[in-house]
Each structure stands twice: as C-alpha cells, then as structure tokens.
C-alpha cells in the first residue's frame, strides 16, 4: 500500500468501515510510515474532537409545528397540535385541504398562479377564495412546482393524464413573464392545472380548468386577502390568475395570455 491509498483508507479505518484485510494493510503501512502514522493520529484526534463538539442541531419548535400541521390528523387532535401562521388562517372551507399546511415561510410578497380546473361549482367568491388558498399554499418552499422548467413543451405534456384538460402553456418570457413550470393543484378536491409564472419577485399562478366558477368571457377582477385575482373564460376553459403583482401588471399578464391563447390552438 502506498501513501496515497493509505491517506484515503485511513479515514475508513477511523470510521470503522474497513474490512479486516484492508484494516491490516493500513495498519501495516502506518507502522512503517511516519507521515501516515502522524496523519492517522491527527485525524483520529479530529474525529474525537468533532464527536465531542456538539455539531448536532435541534429543529426549532415552530418548525416542528409547521411540519405537524401539514399532516392530516383527526380534527380534535388537529386543533390542539396544529400551528398555523395567523395571516393565513381562514375559518371556512378548509377541510378538503386537510393534508396541506396553510402556513408558509415564504414572504407573502412572492407569487402569482394561473389555474385551469375541471370544476363544477359555480360560486365565484368561493372559487376565488379557493384559488387564493391554493396560491398561498403554492408559495410554501418547494411547493410551487411539480415540473420545473421554462420550456413550455415540457410543461404541457406533463399535465397529460393528470388533469382532464390540456392547459395552454404559453411562454411569455419575451413579454417579461417568466415561465417557471407547472403544478397539479386541488380546488375543492378536484385536480387543477396550475401554470406558474414569475415577474421579478412576484409569482403568478394561472389555474386552468374546464369549469371553475361562473363562465364569462369578460375578465373579472377582485382582491382576496390582499392578492389580486383575475378570472375569465375562453375556449371552453376557465382561467384564474392569482398574484401579489400589482393590478396593472397582472392585467397586462392576463391580456398577454388571452391574446396568445386566442392566437394558438394550444
């Protein structure tokens, strides 16, 4: 065994990962090589010191609370254990989101989503509440996208078989709205396609479904919990765009999407 081999294997020896044969080889080399013997001694001391140093981390209680909050639990238990950031607590229509944490660590200043759904309910305000909830939920770290790519030809096929519609995935990068990817979401327990865009720091969720709210071609706008919401229908689909982007820019987004959607059969 040469020094180069020994330098690697001595760590395995220290860590108790060497089989007997190799351990003997390392020890034999170390016995005849002062340099490697010194290294073995030093690294042993370092390992010992690291074991004594408390390098472990304790997860903070609020993090534990956040994680427990996203696990579906019986209601009685839930009220006792679940920790939800106040700003995202809403009293009604939460049950079907059961398993998802409503809290978010991301600043509320982040996202907008466009959602396409296969929806049967027609109550606009209810749907608006739901898409905003879905939007907020999506802002949780890592929750935003199931398929993360700026390539519309990757996003679109990804939805195949996951939702009943083929949501148009339109690349608006040139227009200043970056396509981030797509996500399968749930509105009232139904799978809904969400195409995710971003302008600067603001996420836009574009939810798309066959039926999601009261169909009307004219864009309706409202504000829910501080988020701007736009709903319109086109080509037999309902579109909901949600974002904390300012209303003017969100309108610009809606207008670009509509124009592109009309212009292409996708």
């Amino acid at each position, binding site marked *: 065994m040469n020094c180069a081999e020994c330098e690697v294997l001595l*760590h395995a020896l220290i860590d108790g990962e060497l089989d007997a044969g190799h351990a003997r080889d390392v020890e034999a080399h170390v016995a005849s090589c002062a340099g490697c013997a010194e290294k073995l001694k030093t690294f042993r001391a370092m390992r*010992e010191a*690291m074991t004594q140093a408390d*390098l472990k981390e*304790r*997860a903070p209680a609020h*993090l534990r609370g956040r994680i427990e909050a996203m696990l579906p639990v019986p209601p009685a238990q839930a009220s006792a254990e679940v920790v939800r950031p106040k700003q995202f607590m809403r009293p009604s229509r939460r049950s079907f989101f059961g398993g998802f944490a409503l809290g978010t660590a991301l600043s509320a200043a982040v996202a907008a989503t466009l959602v396409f759904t296969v929806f049967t309910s027609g109550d606009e305000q209810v749907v608006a509440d739901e898409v905003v909830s879905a939007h907020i939920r999506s802002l949780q770290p*890592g*929750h935003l996208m199931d398929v993360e790519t700026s390539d519309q030809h990757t996003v679109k096929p990804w939805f195949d078989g996951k939702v009943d519609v083929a949501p148009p995935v339109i690349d608006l990068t040139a227009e200043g709205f970056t396509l981030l990817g797509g996500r399968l979401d749930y509105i009232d327990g139904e799978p809904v396609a969400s195409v995710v865009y971003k302008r600067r720091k603001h996420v836009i969720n574009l939810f798309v479904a066959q039926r999601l709210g009261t169909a009307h071609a004219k864009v309706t706008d409202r504000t829910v919990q501080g988020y701007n919401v736009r709903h319109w229908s086109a080509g037999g689909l309902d579109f909901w765009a949600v974002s904390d982007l300012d209303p003017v820019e969100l309108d610009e987004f809606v207008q670009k999407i509509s124009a592109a959607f009309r212009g292409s059969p996708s």
Partner: protein
Amino acid sequence: MRDAMMADANAEQEKARRFRDAALPYLDDVFALARYLMRNAADAEDAVQECYLRALRHFDSYRGPAMKPWLLAILRNVCNAEFVRRGKQEMAPDDADDDPASEQPPLWQEPLASPEAALLRRQDDETVRRLVAALPQPFREVIVLREVNELSYQEIAEVAGVPVGTVMSRLARGRSMLRSAWNGAEAKSPGAVS
C-alpha cells in the same frame, strides 16, 4: 394517479400517522443537514418543510431500507433544486473532485508533515461548526452526513448519489481541508490535542 388522489380521508390519516411515526424522529437530523447545506436558519427551515412535504407525498412508494438516509436524500434534492432556482452553483457538480482549481488553495493545501502542523489545536464547538460550514461543497456534505448524521459510507453514497469510492475520497479531502482550516483558525484557548 387520480385514484391515489381520491383515496379516502381515513386512509390518508392512517398514512399520515405512519409517516409521522417513521419520519418525525429524524427531524433534527434533517434540520442539521439543512443548516449546513443552506447555511442559514430560515432557508434551512423552508427546505426541511419542503422535504417533509415531498416525503409524505412519496411515502406510498417508500420501501426502505432506512428512513433517515431516505429523508436526507430528499432534503438534499430540495436544497439542490433551490440553488438551481436561485441560479447558484452551491451544490457543486460531481466533477468538482477532479478540478483542483475550483477550490481555494489554502483550504486544501497539505500541511507540512511537521509535528506542529500535524497536531490539532483545541477548538471550541462554535469554531468547529464554523469550520465545517466553511468547507466547500461537496466536501461539507459528506463530512456532515458522516459526523453529524452518522451515516455509514454506503448510506452517504446513496444520499449523495455517488459511488462509495467517491464518498471515501471526498471524506479524505474534506477532512484534510478541515484540518488545515482547523489549525489555521484562531483558537480561543490555544493548545494542542494529541
């Protein structure tokens, strides 16, 4: 997929209970790795939460062998994706091992084989943490998986998605860097530990 989504609430709750029992005990481990990978508490917490979300989502397909490395592998992917999203190359590509130029020379320069250099200065816990946190990826990762998460080489290999041989060479390199930084770091109570 649709069927799975429509699984009834009871099954979901049962699954959540099993998941909780299996996965929550490793929260500290997951958080520790997240701290060292993300380098700040807020990002670490976000990553941990996302890790558990993904783990829950894929819990149905979880077949073992061990929960801890499985969770840590998910966490690692979450952190990786976050760095990609930010456009940073924090999680260094796998060929980093072969590219000496990608490292800061002082960190991995072999110390002289003099007794003085070989000895280890005593460092307080905070300094040791800082030294580990300052290691470049992917060496920091293997050191933490080994020293903090106490995984076997085989488990580290699975988490990092590299062969065991690569784990061994990264550990050797990582510990050499650590030793150099260790002896170079300002010690509160200078003195050698032999």
